[in-house]
């Protein structure tokens, strides 16, 4: 098991290297310029100067090597300095965003908390709703509950978040006035009142995303349960005189969870990736809105860095899912 994990980790290095290469140049060669957003009143000579100061005029391969060095050496050193108060990285050039002219990782650090809070909660809520719905839908297949669950899942699948989110805003914020439409990222939870405020501002984005997440996971849960319900060991368990409760929740559920856990684990990197549309709609301003803003502004260092971090997370969580798989199902052995 350990050797397997180590082998996979080592294999991840060339994979990630290749990904970084492809990502960097794909983003780099895409058409567009970081100056497209600045007003036309800025004369051409000044534009040239700005590009020079950004380092945009360096050849791409030089920028790639510099970026690799910054990503794997300067930024970790900076993280170390921030944690332990040392000064190893002083004077080293960090990855600088074209848009903000500030370090990319500082922005990521600012963005991560709200993304994890909102998107993470939405994922959790989605899972908590989806698993019971999936179990009961499968247990009472074709009942009215199953039909209703199927319908809700279809809605969750097919209605895009920019529509469902706007609908929720119009109903709950404009007409009823219960929830704010803009998320306050500066809110500190210090007491009961601020906690309630935090819950209120999270409600709408979490509802919007939770519905979409629950839809997918509940379908996986249902089909996995159905597959196991007809198995011989279930009949045996029933024949032994076990209660329905024990049969469903102990025997069937444990076996059905194996593929679902994989799906849930593989979905976790998307939490870090944020939710571009929902974040923008509610002003959550997490990683997703940072990415889309950077893409719009042709902020190459920001896009390259964010995309590469996502790649690392995906590779990592694939590994985690595989390891979890073998833990849940002792029949699976990698060695």
């Amino acid at each position, binding site marked *: 098991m350990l050797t397997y994990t180590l082998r996979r980790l080592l294999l991840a290095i060339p994979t990630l290297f290749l990904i970084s290469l492809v990502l960097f140049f794909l983003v780099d060669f895409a058409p567009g310029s970081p100056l*497209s957003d600045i007003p036309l009143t800025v004369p051409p000579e000044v534009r040239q100067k700005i590009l020079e100061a950004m380092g945009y005029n360096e050849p791409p391969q030089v920028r790639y090597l510099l970026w690799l060095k910054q990503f794997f050496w300067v930024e970790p050193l900076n993280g170390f300095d921030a944690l332990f108060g040392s000064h190893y990285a002083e004077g080293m050039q960090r990855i600088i965003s074209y848009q903000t*002219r500030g370090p990319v990782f500082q922005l990521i650090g600012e963005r991560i908390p709200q993304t994890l809070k909102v998107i993470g909660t939405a994922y959790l809520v989605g899972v908590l709703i989806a698993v019971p719905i999936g179990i009961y839908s499968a247990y009472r297949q074709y009942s009215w509950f199953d039909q209703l669950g199927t319908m809700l899942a279809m809605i969750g699948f097919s209605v895009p978040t920019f529509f469902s989110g706007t609908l929720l805003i119009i109903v709950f914020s*404009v007409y009823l006035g219960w929830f704010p439409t*803009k998320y306050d990222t500066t809110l500190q939870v210090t007491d009961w009142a601020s906690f309630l405020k935090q819950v209120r501002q999270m409600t709408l984005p979490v509802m919007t995303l939770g519905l979409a997440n629950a839809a997918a996971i509940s379908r996986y849960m249902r089909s996995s349960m159905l597959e196991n319900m007809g198995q011989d060991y279930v009949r045996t368990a029933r024949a032994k005189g076990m209660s329905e409760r024990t049969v469903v929740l102990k025997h069937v559920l444990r076996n059905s969870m194996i593929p679902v856990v994989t799906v849930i684990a593989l979905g976790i990197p998307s939490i870090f990736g944020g939710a571009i549309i929902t974040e*923008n709609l509610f002003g959550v301003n997490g990683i997703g809105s940072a990415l889309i803003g950077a893409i719009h502004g042709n902020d190459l260092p920001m896009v390259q860095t964010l995309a590469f971090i996502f790649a690392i997370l995906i590779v990592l969580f694939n590994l985690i899912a595989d390891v979890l798989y073998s833990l849940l199902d002792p029949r699976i052995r990698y060695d």
Partner: protein
Amino acid sequence: MKLRTALLGAACAFAFAPAAFAERGADGHVNVLYWQAPSTLNPYLSSGTKDVETSSLVLEGLGGFNEKGEVIARLAEQVPTVENGGVSADLTSITWKLKPGLLWSDGTPVTSKDAKFTYDYCTHPDGGCAQASRFEGIASIETPDDLTVKITFTGPKPNPYQAFVGGTSPIIQAAQFANCLGAAASTCTDQNFMPIGTGPFRVTEFKTNDTVSLEANPNYRDPAKPAFATMTVKGGGDAEAAARAVMQTGEFDYAWNTQINPELQAQMATGGKGVFVNGFGTLVERIEMNMTDPDPALAEGERSTVKHPHPVLSDIKVRQALSMAIDRQLLVDVGYGTAGRPTCNLVPAPENFASPNTDCIPQQMDAAKALLEEAGWKDSDGDGIRDKDGKKLHILFQSSTNPVRQDFQALIKDWWTELGVDVELKNIDASVFFGGDAGSPDTFQKFYADVEMYANNFDGTDPEPYLAQYLCNKIPGPDNQWQGENINRYCDPAYDALVAEMATTADMAKRGELAKKMNEMLTKDSYVVVPLVDRGRLSAASVTLGGVVLNTWDTEMWNAQDWFRIK
């Protein structure tokens, strides 16, 4: 004794009366929404409107512009002019005097050294200063004493109010930015995100592209202002969501640039929680005619260059007919509502420079058709498309991708088709179209199309540099990496002479006349530039927010110190 105490008491009561009415920080908190969130608070590193406007809450120049476009004093005691001796008679220098006793928000005194430092900071060759053009034509800046800033120009400068005037060139603190000159500019994250300023507010927290938290500057020069103790500038979302947060849910007090379609404007206005404020500046949506041949059959490097005049559009009658076929009022109604008005001018304001020409406003389809007939374009084969010498009248019309522009393109295509012109539409992603990449065929400078539509304006109130863009030597081409500003490839020696004359004319009335003349040469006399819509600014303000005056000549936050809560 008693009488004296009583009198003193009464005097004190009077003295404090205004303070009781208006006291710094008495009105609590104000929420402002910039849906394009500020990326930095150093306007010298970003010329994005959102960054310049937000930073103007903290940083100020010596002067600024008011809502009428007049220069007002901010940190300066008064606006220097030739009359008061502040501007030298030969227009080669301007001397600003700082108000005495000014303090930065950290309590240290503001001196003329800070202005000199700001100049050094922005003109440093490695800094990539985004506002470098504000400091153009300056020979030197001298600081004979702590309160005097003397700017000497390289030649006579009829409009000396460029450096240190308005939100785009404020004064930064020398002590704070001392180590941030040149290439070090972008390593100064704390300085760029939390500049020390003289404005009504100071930054307490800056979250990049998200939220700026501010509080009243304790050292602001007017002890009674600002009325708000704290301010939040929030970013994110789009114009529609921003308008909704002010007009319908009332969560925010002010939302910048809530440019939404007229139908939504009317719907949101019924919310009763806010009002739209609009004002007109110099932004004009226009169609530019290509005077050179963009034919793809031409060799690369010769396409859209002065070597080959345009085979069709070189004829003024065709250009004029295309302009006459357009119903500008309908374009305004479809695209902008109250935030736009039809215009025939490239320079729609200020009044002194704006031509009174309104010839183009009524649509004249029949006259346009007659003009094309006269020019020899006739529909000889009856297919509805005019032709001449066996060549069809075909036009490629490009613009940037944007819902309003595509609506405009579709409407204009209808009118031109009615005229008997075969129109092909093309839209290009804005990041490419405005990106200026010399390697891309799709930039607006390269102009590989017959006509193109976009909007442009000028900084401040003086159109001289703007009109000077149409000089013969500013034509984009392969020799200058397609970086010229004369997009139409217009070239007229008489026009160049007028530009040269304006550069040495100081008299405002005369300058106005020259500007009007040049504007007309480009528009109604030649139809090289076909203005469509004078685009105003549209922002939303809560009904409980007082003191809002929309200023299109400076930043929208220009008078945030005067904002108050209507109780």
